[in-house]
């Protein structure tokens, strides 16, 4: 028996069936379910509007829905900013202290300078930077995010944002995958499997990177705290910093919509498809599971991955900074060579160099950049406070507000990290889409930063 024969037979049988036999099947399915349920279920209470429903009226209302969402986002980010600031300082003091001690110990044993330098000023410093910059925000953000997730809030977000995604020609469930992207873009890309239309799924995959993942939040938080909030009274610092990060996140969401809109009108033409989304009952989150998931599965996972890249990155920077060329060193020479391009984008050569070194995990760009500054310029001991960092960047390396703002924009928009690119390739099984995801995001980052830099210079702001 050949497959074609069976298909032909099925075809002819189907044509002989009376029209509407499909509806008949679905209808009998639903009727049967209804009858069985009617016999088995007895409801004794008549409280029509229970807690869940009242809650949903509020959080998905056309007026209060979006403000509540923004409020929650702001609250989480504010908690993260104000908490991380304190903890980061402690961790920096301890870790850089250990570095000093280790360096002294190596000198005492009489090891050659280059071993001491490579180990403590290269590899160790890279690790110390990444841990002190990244760990504190993640320790606060991930549990808070997981709490909302376990509570059942995310489907409400999808409900609130559905109409916007629909307008851009994308799938409403994209807001779920976008929300997952805040945790990790690779996880967000995998989560797009819930979208059944291949076209809309591709849009969700390609635009996921426009929301900053947890690896990139620390960069945004640090820059917002050190630069944007620095000129305000101390009492306001954490609010201004949080507000800035929320603003950057909203810009990212804006670019998600814009890119979705452009994609659904060009390479991925089509209409948004309809879907049903259940608003599940709110569940009391399980504290121990939240802590386990957010600390072990997420924080440690992301941090470990960053450390694996930070150690070799630290080593490379140390080597580049210690190969002398004339009066200068190799790192300086490369940074100078990249400088014109960097300046064009409102950045500088060191940032571009750091960015290139950090390609495998570009969330470590800021720590890498700090090391390059310290390596190529004046060598100071690890900065442990925000004013130290401010001094190093502004007074030591000529940063302006434009540099900070553009680095935030660049961090928000630039290409996905290597893991995410690999995930995109695995999910789409196509080199073309993986490449497009890189070109599209990196292109956006370059165009946008070039634009803001030109604008700032044109108006004489810098």
């Amino acid at each position, binding site marked *: 028996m050949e497959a074609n024969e*069976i298909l032909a037979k099925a075809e002819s049988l189907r044509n002989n069936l009376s029209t509407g036999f499909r509806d*008949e099947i679905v209808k009998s399915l639903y009727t049967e379910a209804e009858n069985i349920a009617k016999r088995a279920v007895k409801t004794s209470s008549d409280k029509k509007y229970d807690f869940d429903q009242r809650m949903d009226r509020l959080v998905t209302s056309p007026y209060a829905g979006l403000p509540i969402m923004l409020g929650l986002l702001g609250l989480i980010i504010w908690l993260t900013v104000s908490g991380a600031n304190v903890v980061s300082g402690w961790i920096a003091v301890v870790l850089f202290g250990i570095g000093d001690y280790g360096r002294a110990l190596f000198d005492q044993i009489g090891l050659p300078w280059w071993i001491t330098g490579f180990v403590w000023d290269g590899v160790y410093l890279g690790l110390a930077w990444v841990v002190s910059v990244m760990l504190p925000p993640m320790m606060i953000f991930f549990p808070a995010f997981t709490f909302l997730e376990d509570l059942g809030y995310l489907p409400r977000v999808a409900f609130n944002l559905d109409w916007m995604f629909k307008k851009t020609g994308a799938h409403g469930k994209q807001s779920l995958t976008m929300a997952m992207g805040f945790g990790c873009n*690779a996880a967000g890309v995998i989560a797009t499997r819930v979208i059944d239309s291949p076209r809309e799924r591709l849009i969700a995959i390609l635009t996921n990177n426009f929301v900053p993942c947890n690896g990139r939040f620390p960069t945004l938080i640090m820059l917002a705290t050190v630069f944007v909030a620095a000129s305000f009274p101390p009492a306001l610092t954490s609010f201004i910093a949080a507000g800035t990060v929320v603003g950057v996140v909203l810009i990212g969401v804006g670019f998600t919509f814009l890119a979705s809109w452009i994609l659904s009108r060009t390479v991925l033409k089509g209409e948004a498809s309809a879907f049903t989304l259940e608003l599940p009952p709110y569940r009391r989150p399980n504290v121990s599971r939240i802590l386990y998931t957010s600390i072990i599965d997420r924080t440690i996972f992301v941090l470990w991955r960053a450390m694996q890249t930070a150690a070799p990155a630290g080593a490379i920077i140390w080597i580049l900074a210690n190969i002398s060329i004339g009066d200068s060193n190799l790192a300086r020479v490369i940074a100078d060579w990249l400088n014109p391009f960097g300046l064009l984008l409102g950045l500088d050569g060191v940032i571009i160099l750091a960015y290139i070194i950090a390609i495998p995990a570009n969330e470590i760009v800021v720590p890498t950049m700090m090391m390059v500054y310290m390596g190529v310029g004046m060598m100071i001991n690890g900065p442990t406070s925000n004013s130290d960092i401010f001094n190093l960047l502004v007074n030591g390396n000529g940063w302006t507000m434009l540099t900070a703002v553009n680095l935030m924009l660049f961090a928000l928009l630039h290409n996905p990290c290597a893991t995410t690119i690999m995930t995109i390739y695995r999910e789409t099984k196509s080199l073309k889409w993986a490449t497009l995801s890189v070109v599209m995001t990196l292109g956006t980052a370059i165009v946008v930063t070039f634009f803001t830099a030109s604008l700032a210079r044109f108006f004489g702001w810098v």
Partner: protein
Amino acid sequence: MSNTKIALPTEHCETCPAFTQLEQMGIKVGDFDRVIALAGNPNTGKSTLFNTLTGLKQHTGNWPGKTVTRAEGGFEFNRMRYKLVDLPGTYSLLSASQDEEVARDFILFGQPGCTIVVTDATALERNLNLVLQVMEITENVVVAINLMDEAKRKGIEVDARSLSRDLGVPAIPITARAGEGIHTLLGAVADVIEGKIITKPLRVGGTPEFQKAVKELVPMIEQMAPGIPNARWLAIRLLDGDARVQKALSTGELGDIVSRQQRADVQFSGKMSVEGRQ
């Protein structure tokens, strides 16, 4: 299946926690006697049940799409080792989305000894649609009526016996979060696998002419692919014009799927349980 099965105590004792033993084995699923699949709508506590049984810490979140790949874990019950495959939560098995396909392919071709369909006691009617669809594919089904505590709080009573009688398969009330009813559930699963409970799944047929058409197609499919687990369901899908099934049939993929799913994919297990954690 191993032949060294120890004589089990009488029916009644079997469900008594003092007699039965549940041992969580995490992802050590290399060696197992039986495979069971875990299906259900999203938000029914499927992953909670999975974690309770295996001791794994699969992340549970109550929104659709939490589990987009299938996760696997193991446990031992009454000296039998089980591999438990947690399928993505879906509302139906008829659409083309990837999560529904994963669930459908496994139930159809993975030939689990038994499929547990986890349902939400507070929204039984909607959940039954999936139960009926799973029962179209396989006879070995046990329905777990989960979230009994939530139902009680909301003043909802579920008559498990009536449900069981109507569906023709065991229906066991449980509260996975608190571990209640788990032993009874596993007892029913074991009974179904061992043939101590003969299930008579309710099949929703459609019109008589449709039934006749199905009957004509079934022998043709069985002749083409001997050993195919459920020709009846495939026939229904073909009559419905399911493009995915048509393609699978004409490209010969069907045979591939059958053999792939029937392989004891041990090396697959570890990787999937890691991926499932994201």
